[in-house]
């Protein structure tokens, strides 16, 4: 489903964020990306929906070479990838409902379906009460859950979640991860970049670890830190 071949990324200001990443993620996989702050997790995810392009190497998503996509084709790639952004990226002048609905409206979903599916998604993240609030009127965790609802609302075949539990309490975090797992079971590829040790350790899924832009570990049934796994 997702393939990175020798991907290297240097940002325009000269900062090297990724070096020679080779990675293959299958159609039904659930994978964690871990690593210290600044390791390149977000950068790696950005390549997949072409927010950034690799300086070198090839990114292939669903058999399409992402590098070759024109500006006109990119929106169609993005509609197949739900993204939970680390900084939420909610439309500031739109309510929670409208923010989630937007992801459906861009695909031309009929009006009556939009309402039903948005409400469903908001219910999954327990935000029905806040449907008519603007992002400014939400707590940090509520913003994050809005972003999660938007990412899953149109059942994309790929779901990328960048630190999806950073502003959530442990109980809610666990609920959200269970939700992602359920979505994964419905044939969705799920990639989660996270710092949440207890979740990574608890899920026992594939773990890829980055450090300083290099891939230092790729384990099935992995845990947050490599050492601890060997201990266990």
């Amino acid at each position, binding site marked *: 489903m997702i393939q990175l071949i020798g991907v290297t990324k240097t940002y325009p200001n000269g900062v090297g964020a990724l070096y020679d990443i080779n990675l293959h993620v299958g159609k039904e996989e659930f994978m964690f990306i871990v690593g210290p702050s600044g390791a390149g997790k977000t950068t790696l995810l950005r390549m997949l929906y072409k927010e950034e392009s690799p300086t070198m190497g090839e990114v292939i998503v669903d058999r399409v070479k992402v590098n070759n996509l024109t500006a006109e084709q990119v929106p169609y790639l993005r*509609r197949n990838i739900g993204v939970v952004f680390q900084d939420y990226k909610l439309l500031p002048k739109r309510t929670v409902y409208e923010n989630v609905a937007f992801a459906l409206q*861009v695909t*031309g979903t009929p009006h009556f379906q939009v309402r039903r599916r948005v409400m469903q998604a908001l219910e999954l993240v327990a935000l029905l009460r806040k449907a008519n609030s603007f992002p400014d009127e939400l707590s940090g965790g509520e913003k994050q859950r809005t972003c999660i609802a*938007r990412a899953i609302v149109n059942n994309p075949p790929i779901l990328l979640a960048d630190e999806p539990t950073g502003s959530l309490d442990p109980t809610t975090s666990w609920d959200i991860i269970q939700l992602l797992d359920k979505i994964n079971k419905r044939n969705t590829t799920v990639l989660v970049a996270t710092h949440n040790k207890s979740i990574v350790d608890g899920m026992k899924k594939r773990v890829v670890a980055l450090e300083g832009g290099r891939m230092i570990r790729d384990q099935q049934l992995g845990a947050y830190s490599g050492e601890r796994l060997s201990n266990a």
Partner: protein
Amino acid sequence: MLSTLTFFISESFISLRRNGLMTMVAVGTITVSLCIFGFFLLSIINMSNIVSNLGTKVDLVAYASQPLTDTEAENVRLQISRIDGVKEAKWISKDKAWKDFKEEFSDRLKLEEIVDSNPLPDTFFVKMLNPELSAKVSKEIARISLIEEVGFNPNLVDKIETLVEAFRIGGLMLVFLLSLATLLIVVNTIRLTVLARETEIVIMRLVGATRSFIRWPFIIEGIILGMLGSGISIVIIKFTYEAIIVRLQNALPFVTLFTNHFWIGCVYFLVAIVGVLLGMLGGYISVNKQLKEEN
């Protein structure tokens, strides 16, 4: 298709309302620009109107070679008016001409003391359709029997006519430049509103919106802004202009201000068209600029 259009339009209205202050500022700027534009148009029209009225309406003057009877005069008048390029000809009888002349120069000339008989000939004032044909027409008039001499209009009037012409050309140029300036201001205003919503556009792109999906609401917003702006400025122009007319007509009764409803309607129409077009163009140019910057 229709539902998409409705969606875009409702999107535009929502965004205009939620960006309330920005909308007001933009409409304000557009209104001011269009007011300047409209007043300028009206001024140009009026000034060239006033300046043309300053000169007499006469392009050519023909003098009879001998005193004419009424029938002869009417005959000559008809002959003149039938010449190609002549708009109308008017007969001023010898007696009337002498009376007018004496009236006009009574304080300067002591003619009556010396001249008993009327020294002026019967006179025909000729108004041209197309002043450029004057030379040709004057030759033709001279060929009519009973006409002795044909003169052009006096020097001052000549100057004024040239001036009016210059006024018209200069005015047109100025209107053109001013339209350009208004366009610039409106585009800049809308560009600033789009710039302020850069984040919004970036996010829309990231969740899979195509360019045209983003573009349309902005263009419609531009059109609505333009419509609001031109609507308000037409109301302002209308009331101000009418107030000015009343006042000026009293102060300067001899100056005829432009009150032809059709043409004033045209000015309003032009302001409206320019406003809407500018809004649309402004919306298009600025959102496009923003969209071009990525990729």
